[in-house]
């Protein structure tokens, strides 16, 4: 025991430079990641900026009870869950499908052009991409011009509750699925090509090859990304929703993050908003632990 300690100190003395290299990063993680984690205790307090973390009074689960009985929270929670599930259902398979399709392309210039077009939106901010979406879907935008041209009535897409979630999911797919397909393309490129040759000898068709060789071969990649996605189920891109929503569609578009921002930072109900945020992070952590466990049984998982 003692000698281990001595050895450890000796090691640190000889390799002190390595620890010095580590120091700024460690300070960063402790200060900007772990201190806020400690800060969540204000969710159990009636936090007052004047009294601070140490002086504020502890009130137990008061704030949690309050938001579980709050109608507005229920709406926000339902929106977050629904949009997330839609994004998971439609958005998760999209890059896999794109990668499979791109993989079949034999014409090189076509492949390169397609990939460039697919990747580019990822590099635009949600302000810019959202700006383009708002512009194209506005009353006088491109889509309505086409609708009017074919004799339909123009639709105010951004101010219509019925369309808002669809718009969120669809624009997210257009913006990110091309970029996300890179990782699957890399995985597909690693599949042993003799497997395909053997299958073709046995008379396999394209759809058999995809279903029985390609997809099983990239299963672990799919599982890892699925676990990550599931862990983020209550954390939608706040940058997207904050850009696209407006008071008319709050009822269907307000999500936990925008709610926390509004209640916490603009109304300054710090403790209440922190409780909501803590609930969100905890559900995310539990989901990621459960799904990782499940994924490991199928040969995937993060750890």
């Amino acid at each position, binding site marked *: 025991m003692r000698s281990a300690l001595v050895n450890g100190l000796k090691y640190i003395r000889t390799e002190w*430079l*390595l*620890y010095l*290299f*580590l120091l700024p*990063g*460690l300070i*960063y*993680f402790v200060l*900007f*990641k*772990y*201190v806020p*984690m400690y*800060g*969540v205790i*204000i969710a159990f307090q009636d936090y007052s900026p004047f009294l601070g973390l140490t002086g504020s009074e502890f009130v137990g689960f008061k704030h949690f009870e309050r938001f579980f009985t709050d109608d507005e929270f229920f709406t926000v929670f339902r929106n977050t869950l629904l949009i997330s599930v839609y994004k998971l259902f439609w958005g998760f398979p999209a890059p896999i499908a*794109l990668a499979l*399709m791109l993989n079949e*392309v034999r014409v090189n210039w076509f492949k390169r052009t*397609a*990939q460039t077009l*697919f*990747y*580019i939106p990822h590099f635009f*901010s*949600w*302000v*810019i991409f959202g*700006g*383009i979406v*708002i*512009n*194209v879907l506005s009353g*006088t935008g491109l889509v309505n*011009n086409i609708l009017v041209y074919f004799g339909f009535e123009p639709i105010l897409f951004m101010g219509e509750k019925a369309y808002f979630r669809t718009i969120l999911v669809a624009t997210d797919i257009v913006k990110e699925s*091309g970029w996300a397909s*890179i*990782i699957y*393309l*890399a*995985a597909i*490129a690693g599949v042993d090509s003799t497997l395909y040759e053997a299958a073709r000898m046995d008379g396999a*068709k394209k759809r058999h090859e995809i279903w029985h060789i390609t997809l099983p071969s990239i299963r672990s*990649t799919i599982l*890892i990304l699925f676990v990550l996605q599931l862990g983020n189920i209550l954390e939608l891109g706040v*940058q997207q929703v*904050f*850009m696209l929503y*407006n008071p008319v569609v709050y009822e269907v578009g307000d999500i936990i993050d925008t709610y926390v*921002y509004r209640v*916490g*930072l603009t109304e300054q109900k*710090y403790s209440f*908003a922190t409780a909501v*945020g803590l609930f969100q*992070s*905890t559900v995310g952590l539990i989901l*990621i632990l459960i799904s990782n466990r499940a994924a490991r049984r199928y040969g995937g998982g993060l*750890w």
Partner: protein
Amino acid sequence: MSRASVGEKLGSGLNYLLLAAFGLLTLFPFLHVLAQSLSSHTAVVSNRVSIYPIDFQTEAYKLLFQDDAFYRAFGVSAMRTVLGTALNMALTCLMAYPLSRRTLKGRGFVMGMVVFTMLFSGGMIPSFLLLKELKLLNTFFALILPSAISAFNLILLKNFFESIPSSLDESAKMDGAGHGTILTRIYIPLSLPAIATLTLFYAVMHWNSYFDAVMYINKAELNPLQVYLRNLIVQNESNIELTNNMGLFLVAPETLKAATIMASVLPMIILYPFLQKFFVKGVMLGAVKE
């Protein structure tokens, strides 16, 4: 030995068609906004602009490039991107190097600490209160310090460093090189695709994010370009006078928005072709290593 059946040819044709359709889906809206930014007031208002400019004019850009607020916001974003990315890369390299050494004592503990931050976070309000306590609200540092290292990028670079053969730095040590020399003369040059990719990731993150500025900044002169742009698009806020001296409307508000969008994506569009070959390679290297 062509053995493609009619069915396979049809499937292949459909494949090309769908991919082309998806490509056009991203291209058309972009062209539409570009066309609007270069069209006359009457053409935009009467809805005649689709994907090419009508009555070509550049008034909107001229107005934009005369606006002080636009320059200031552009400057904040540019400075944030350059300084922020430099800080990101310095800290990420410094931390990835010790962590890539399997013999480092305490390595597992530090890695566990880093990974845990990817699974759980304190959330928006405690982070805000921390910055408030540190007196960083409404300062430039609020834009770069809270995102100084991305755990994901750190792990990517650590994995990359691990793949460098250890015989290389052993022989460097024989020649009397210290860790500083090994990192800057051997590891970094050998990891250029990864370094370039991470630099790109960080730079894009800085150039594009706006929500942190919404939370931490409420001084107009410290607003980055994305916030300027959002105020213009969502709230229709602009100081720019849309009329000429004669009091005639030369530029439609829509045209001004379109021009601002274009001016903000321009740096990205110009850099993109140079970066593409890097990041595809870098991302794939990171992905295959998982």
